[in-house]
């Protein structure tokens, strides 16, 4: 399988503080890699560097074999991102937002693309609604539509189902599974929902204090650490200072 994301020994320092301490990993096409870690472990910084919003202090990032530093625009055309911490303009209708972002990503068949995403994500009835007036679940599906408007090869997801009810959360997870399978895209998923990670991810990286402290398939990590589930593994690794630092 081809690696769509290649991260080679990236570091990020803010002054004397080392936010990310030389981490390396790959994500293959048709793979979902989980990025786990407690708050402040360096997950958001890592995602920021992958999006080109942050400049690594050292190290290289390749997306689809293109070096990010030298091909920012070409790479941004083939990736996208969703996070509960960023929103679409609230006063615009859903359709206007999707149309604007289709233009920014130079989507060719905008009408067909919006129709496709509306059907897949069940937002057809919301197209003429004001984005700011939608419920959390509806906003989440609209944000996901925006994140898929350019048919990304690489999708970065930061807590994609945070604050969603179980039904909508399950709908989003099922959609992501099917979409990844159909389009053979790579997904990097940062989440605190361990059931979600266990269900979706082929493998996971555990981060703490800017370092990768463990990695592997969810079931292998559970066996290795002698715990009942991934949440217990997470808690063990998060709390255990002496073992890993």
């Amino acid at each position, binding site marked *: 399988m081809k690696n769509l994301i290649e991260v080679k020994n990236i570091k990020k320092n803010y002054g004397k503080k080392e936010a990310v301490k030389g981490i390396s990993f790959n994500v293959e096409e048709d793979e979902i890699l989980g990025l786990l870690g407690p708050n402040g472990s360096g997950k958001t*910084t890592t995602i*920021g560097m992958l999006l080109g919003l942050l400049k690594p202090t050292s190290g290289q990032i390749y997306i689809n074999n293109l070096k990010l530093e030298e091909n920012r625009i070409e790479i941004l055309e083939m990736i996208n991102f969703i996070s509960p911490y960023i929103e679409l303009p609230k006063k615009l209708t859903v359709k206007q937002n999707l149309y604007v972002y289709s233009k920014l990503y130079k989507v060719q068949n905008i009408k067909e693309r919006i129709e496709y995403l509306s059907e897949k994500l069940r937002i057809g009835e919301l197209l003429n609604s004001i984005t700011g007036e939608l419920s959390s679940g509806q906003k989440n599906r609209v944000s996901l539509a925006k994140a898929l408007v350019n048919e990304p090869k690489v999708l970065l997801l930061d807590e994609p189902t945070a604050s969603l009810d179980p039904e909508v959360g399950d709908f989003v997870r099922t959609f992501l599974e099917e979409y990844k399978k159909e389009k053979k895209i790579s997904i990097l998923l940062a989440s605190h929902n361990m059931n979600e990670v266990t269900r979706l991810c082929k493998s996971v990286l555990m981060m703490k204090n800017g370092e990768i402290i463990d990695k592997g398939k969810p079931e292998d990590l559970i066996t290795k650490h002698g715990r009942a589930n991934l949440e217990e593994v997470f808690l063990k690794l998060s709390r255990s200072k002496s073992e890993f630092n």
Partner: protein
Amino acid sequence: MSLTRIYGLFLRHFYLITRSFPRILDLVYWPSIQITLWGFISNFFASHTTYYNNAVGVILTCAILYDFLFRTSIGFNMLFLEEIWSRNFTNLFIAPMRIGEILTSLVITALIRSLIGLVPAILLTSPLFGISILDLGIFLFFLFLSLYIFGITLGILVSSGLLRFGPSFENIAWSTMFLLAPFGCIYYPIETLPEIFQKIAYVLPLVYIFEEARNILINQTVNIENVYYAFMWNAFYFSLSIALFYYSFNAAKNKGTLINMGE
């Protein structure tokens, strides 16, 4: 440069304006109030001073010119701040847009916003006060162009600060024009300023623009040097603002401001 992307970002702001009546009202309301207020002041001075006896419309014309500058600068900052307030900032900067495309789109949108406010204000002056800013003739275009470039320049400088320092720089966005106004010699000749302030005023394009507006209206002559110096200083500050924006963008990428902007 991609016209499609520029058009896309323009649409994002155009939709916002057309969807919100208070926003349209805000664009029209303040310029009209300003012009009405200054129109009465202008009439008062015309009947009480000899300086303005032969040119009743000088103050009013300068008020319109200054308001255009003010609207352009604040308008540009508003477009940038809208992205921060709506927490859309990250979405914009992860879209495959070049800095030049973002700036061009904002510059065009800011012009349209300013014109929406300016046209009703100009139309009001004639029936209310019997004055037409068109008395400035063909040079009106050059004066407006010069003011527009300087307004955009100030907008880009403030946006650079927002990029570099985050939303806390917002208050500077509102105060820039008020800080510069005394040095602009908008309603009085430069000789009115103390000598040290005159030195500062002479390195700003504003003084040349407003001196020339008064010169045309009062003396009925054209001093092409004023227009030339205004454009020269504008070219300098505009280039400086673009360079500073690129510098701030790179600094923000190092500091992490871009990823935290909406939070």
